[in-house]
Structures are given as structure tokens and as C-alpha cells.
């Protein structure tokens, strides 16, 4: 049996010794400052952080799912569905309840995914791709495929445009999300169980853990992080858009992969997520500033994912491969 209090922190939390992603991130930042025109201006950096903030909040959710050994593709669609639900609920319920309804939708989709993966034993790809289709179909169906404008109000636009002590709300929310995630992973009982289940589900079950419940809670918690992102995004676009953030799942998975979370699960630290997110946001920003076609964002993102995962494989194996290839 597991004892109630375990000494020390789970080893899965330890960062890899040279935090490679931090160096990559810093290097990219310096490169961008030197070679990308207008990158290093205050306005642009704030803009990068704003974009990174939403990505970071959702990536925190993705990180939980990845630590559980899963993968979550339905974030983009559930954010779109949330925006539609929010705007449809606005006239009747007012901004706060409307946004809450949108957030609840995302958590609901996450919980369904968790149920399908945990209880029904579906592979995460199948479950989340299925709910992706269902959620985006429902979003488009509700509004007939066209964006629905929201009546402007101060409370409604606060999550995206408000400032607290001069700091934009999305950036504050992202910091808060990181702190909460770190708290859950490092100090929470549930976080330790997520690592346990992700590292070895069979062992977890043999240790008497209700694996299905832990997975369900993990996907629902991921949904909760994504819900915060959905509220900020909806508030920013001030409309219900059935095609709001189609690349969100890809970008969050890429951020986690670039940050060095192994997609086989069981390990991960919140700082890896943060640096991964910053890298993705800077790449996207640089592509726009250099005036390359936006499609380069996709190409670079894909290559970055492959490169990052490739570099995670131990260097010895890479060297062996290179040796064989040259022979």
C-alpha cells in the first residue's frame, strides 16, 4: 500500500541536468533579437507573451494528459465549442455566467475523453480525435457555420484586455496556471498519482490505485486548464467562432514535446512546458515578422517537434545511428 505521506519529491519531477530546452529557448531569443527586425521592441515582446500566455495555459493541460501517457487532440474544437456556447448564453445569462458555461463545456469534453480513455480503454488518439469531430461539428451546427458576434461589455472583454497592476490578465492567468500545475504535480497527491499511472499503469493498478478514476480526473483537470484558455480566447475575439483555434492541440503538443516531456508519459516539469511554449510562440512571431508565408509556421513547428523528440533520444543512440548511416 502507498503510505499517506511520501518523503521528498517524485523523481519524475527532476529536470534533465542541462535544461536543454532553456538553452534552446534563450538561443532562439538572442537570434531573434539580432536578426529579426522589430522583434526586440517592448510592444512586440508583450505581444509574444500575450500569445504565449493562452498557449501556456492550454499547454499546462496538455502536459497533464501527456504525463498520463495520453495525448489530447480535442482542445481546439472544444475551445471553439466553448466560444459558441458562451456567446449563445450571453443574452440570457450575462457575461460571467456565459463565460462559465463555456468553461464548463470544455471541462465536460475533457471528462468525456477521460472516461473513454480510462474506463472504456480506448486509445487516447481515437477518443480525442472522435470528440474533436463531435465538438467541432456541434459548434458549427449550433451557429450554422458562421461566426456569431457577442454584444460588447466591459466584463466580457476583461479576461483578454484587462490589466491588474499594469500586467495584462492573460499573462497573470498563465503565471497562475503554471503555479497551480506545479503545485498539483509537486505537492499534490493527485499529481503523484498521475506520474505513477503515466509511468506504469499496470503497476499503478496492482498498487491498488483506481487507474480509470485518476485518468478521468487528469483529463478533466486538463479540460479545466483549457477552459481558462477558452475564456480568454473567447473574450479576445468577442464572438462565437466554430473554427476558433484549429491548431491549438498541435501547438500545445509541440510545446510539450519541444519542452522535453517524453510522450510516453510519466515525467515532466512545469518549467519544460513554459520554455516549450515560449519557443513555439517566438518561432510563430519570427515567421510573421520576417514576412515569410504563414505556412512556414506549420513547417517549422513540425520540424521542431521531430527535432526535439529526436534530440531527447539519448545521444549514444543517435551517434550509433549516425555511425551506421555514414558507413
Amino acid at each position, binding site marked *: 500500500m502507498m503510505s499517506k505521506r511520501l518523503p521528498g519529491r517524485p523523481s519524475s519531477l527532476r529536470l534533465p541536468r542541462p535544461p536543454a530546452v532553456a538553452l534552446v529557448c534563450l538561443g532562439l531569443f538572442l537570434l531573434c533579437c539580432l536578426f529579426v527586425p522589430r522583434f526586440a521592441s517592448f510592444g512586440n515582446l508583450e505581444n509574444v507573451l500575450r500569445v504565449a500566455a493562452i498557449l501556456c495555459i492550454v499547454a499546462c493541460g496538455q502536459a497533464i494528459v501527456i504525463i498520463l501517457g495520453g495525448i489530447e487532440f480535442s482542445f481546439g474544437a472544444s475551445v471553439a465549442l466553448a466560444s459558441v456556447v458562451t456567446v449563445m448564453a450571453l443574452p440570457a445569462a450575462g457575461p460571467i455566467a456565459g463565460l462559465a458555461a463555456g468553461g464548463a463545456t470544455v471541462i465536460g469534453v475533457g471528462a468525456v475523453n477521460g472516461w*473513454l480513455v480510462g474506463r472504456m480503454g480506448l486509445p487516447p*488518439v*481515437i477518443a480525442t480525435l472522435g470528440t474533436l*469531430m463531435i465538438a467541432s*461539428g456541434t459548434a458549427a*451546427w449550433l451557429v450554422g457555420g458562421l461566426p456569431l458576434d457577442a454584444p460588447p461589455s466591459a466584463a466580457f472583454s476583461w479576461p483578454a484586455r484587462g490589466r491588474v497592476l499594469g500586467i495584462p490578465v492573460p499573462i497573470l492567468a498563465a503565471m497562475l496556471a503554471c503555479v497551480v500545475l506545479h503545485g498539483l504535480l509537486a505537492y499534490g497527491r493527485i499529481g503523484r498519482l498521475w506520474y505513477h499511472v503515466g509511468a506504469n499503469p499496470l503497476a499503478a493498478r496492482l498498487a491498488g490505485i483506481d487507474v480509470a478514476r485518476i485518468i478521468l480526473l487528469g483529463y478533466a483537470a486538463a479540460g479545466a486548464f483549457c477552459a481558462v484558455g477558452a475564456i480568454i480566447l473567447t473574450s479576445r475575439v468577442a464572438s462565437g467562432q466554430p473554427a476558433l483555434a484549429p491548431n491549438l492541440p498541435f501547438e500545445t503538443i509541440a510545446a510539450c514535446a519541444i519542452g522535453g516531456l517524453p510522450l*510516453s508519459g510519466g515525467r515532466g516539469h512545469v518549467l519544460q512546458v513554459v520554455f516549450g511554449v515560449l519557443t513555439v510562440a517566438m518561432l510563430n512571431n519570427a515567421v510573421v515578422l520576417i514576412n515569410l508565408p504563414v505556412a512556414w509556421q506549420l513547417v517549422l513547428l513540425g520540424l521542431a517537434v521531430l527535432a526535439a*523528440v529526436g534530440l531527447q533520444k539519448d545521444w549514444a543512440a543517435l551517434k550509433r545511428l549516425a555511425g551506421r548511416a555514414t558507413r
Partner: protein
Amino acid sequence: MRPLSDSGARFLVAPASILAASALFGLATPGFLTLDNGLSIAGQIWILALLAVGQMFAITVRGFDISVGAVAALSGTLGVMAANAFGMPALLLAVPVGFACGTVNGWLVGRAGFQPIVATLGTLLAVKGLALLVTGDGQAVPLAAGDTAGLAFDAVIGLPPLGWAALACIALAHVLLRHLVLGRRILMLGSNPEAVALVGGAPWRIEMSAYQLCGAFAGLAGALMAARAGAGLPTEGAGMELQSIAAAVIGGTALAGGRANVWAVLAGAAFVQVVLTGLNLSGVSPFFAQIAVGAVIIASGLMDMGLRFLLSRLSRTFRQQGTFQ
């Protein structure tokens, strides 16, 4: 005698689902159960069928290929560009392009040890971006070399000529999977990777071949898509990877690997098309069809789990000899 539980049941799900869906839609919509509609469905399934057969190879070696839709879009577009430059036959350049993408996937998964999802997600993003880049800004590239609409739509003995061509390719896939060494090895790798090494095969090479086949079929699907539309569509194919996975899994391809039947996968593709056409004829919103596809994917996954559970129950009474079929 091989017990039914060993292989038969899972491959009967797709035909049974077609019958059930046809009966349902036949009751709900008067125009559904007509010969014309049947032929129209039969003319439309081939893009999905080719993608699903390719996906089947990837699933059989315990993987996934979520890049097939993007690969089809890129290879179809490049095929059209080649056809415009060098004449009609060059449209088939789509196949080597797809094969090349499959090679990248296969190398990453088989040799470099990437998880299939990560590898194909990376290529999905890169290939999607490339398809947009080669066309400037995602503009459709019209096929100037010749008119392919006749080949793609006018039925000759029931099917349009390109449908017959696709059927021939699918028959080839069946021969490959059932009767050639490579196909047997792919099935073997799916059911027991160690066994492949023990009989002297190179597991990574076989895994790579499976992804190469998947890519080549995606390329074929891209060529067919371009011929049907009369243009290369760089943004087409989003969502096709989901439909292809659904069709392959409904067609009895085991998610745990090692079990597949090409004809059942073809039936799975036909089932997805029957559902889409049926919903279309019933006059529901086209967005509802998307919801239905999502439900079909999840249902197919649940079916696979249910079958595995049931068959493992049943097969305890029969002593199974071979594990791969």
C-alpha cells in the same frame, strides 16, 4: 478448423454495419435504397477506401498515421503541377511523393524509435505547411493538362474507370497482405515483434515498409482526389485521417496490431460513405455529418475493445494455435 473467434467475427462487423445503416436510412429516406444512389455511393468511396487501406498497414504494425490527409493533399497538388508541366501521366508522380512521405514516417518510427503519433504529427504539420507553400497561399491548382471528369464520374459497367483503378490497387494490397512475404511479415510484426527478429527479418525495415505502403496509398488517394476535382487542392484532406482511421478500425483492423483484412477495410470505408450519404439525403445539416463521423470513430474504437474482450472470452474454450491471421 479455425474457430470463428480467431478472425471471422471482427471482419463481419463492417458488412453488417452497412446492412444496418442501409436499412435505417432506407426507412428514413425514400430515395436512399435505389440503384442510382447505390451506384453513386460506389463511385464515391474510393478516395476514403485508398486512405483506409493505407492506414490499415500502419495500424497493423501497431501504429497510426495521422498525416495521410495532408500527404494526400500535398501529393495530389504536386501531381497536378507535374501533369501540367509534363502531360497527364505525370499525375502519378503523386504516388512517389506519398511514398517519400511514408518513408520519412517509417524511418522515424521504425529506425529512430519515435512514437507513431509524434512522428506522423510532425510530418502532418510539415507536409500541410509544404502543401500551402508550393501553391503560394493555398490556392487550388487547376489541372490544365486534360479533362479527367469523364474518367472520374462516368460509370463503365457500374463504376467510373478511376474507381476500377482504385479497386485494382486495393486488390493488389490484398494480394500483398495475404500472399506475399512482406504482407505476412507485416501481420507477424503486428502480432509479435520478437517473432520477426527470430525468423531473421529486420523489424524496423518491415515497419518502415508498412508506413511506405500507407504513404503510397495516400499518394494514390491524392491523385484520385485531384482527378475528381480537376485541380490540386492543397487544403483538402483535413479530417480525412480521422475518417480513414474510422474506416480501417470498423473494417476489423485490430488496434492491437496483427489482424487485418483488406476487403473488410473496403467495407468499412463503404460504411462511412453510406452514413455520410444517408445523412446528406435525409437533409440534416452538413455539420451534423461531422458529428456522426466523430461518433463513428469512437464507436469503432469501442467495438474493437468489445470484440477483443468477447473474443478473449470465447477463445478460452478453443485453444488457439497461431496468433496471427
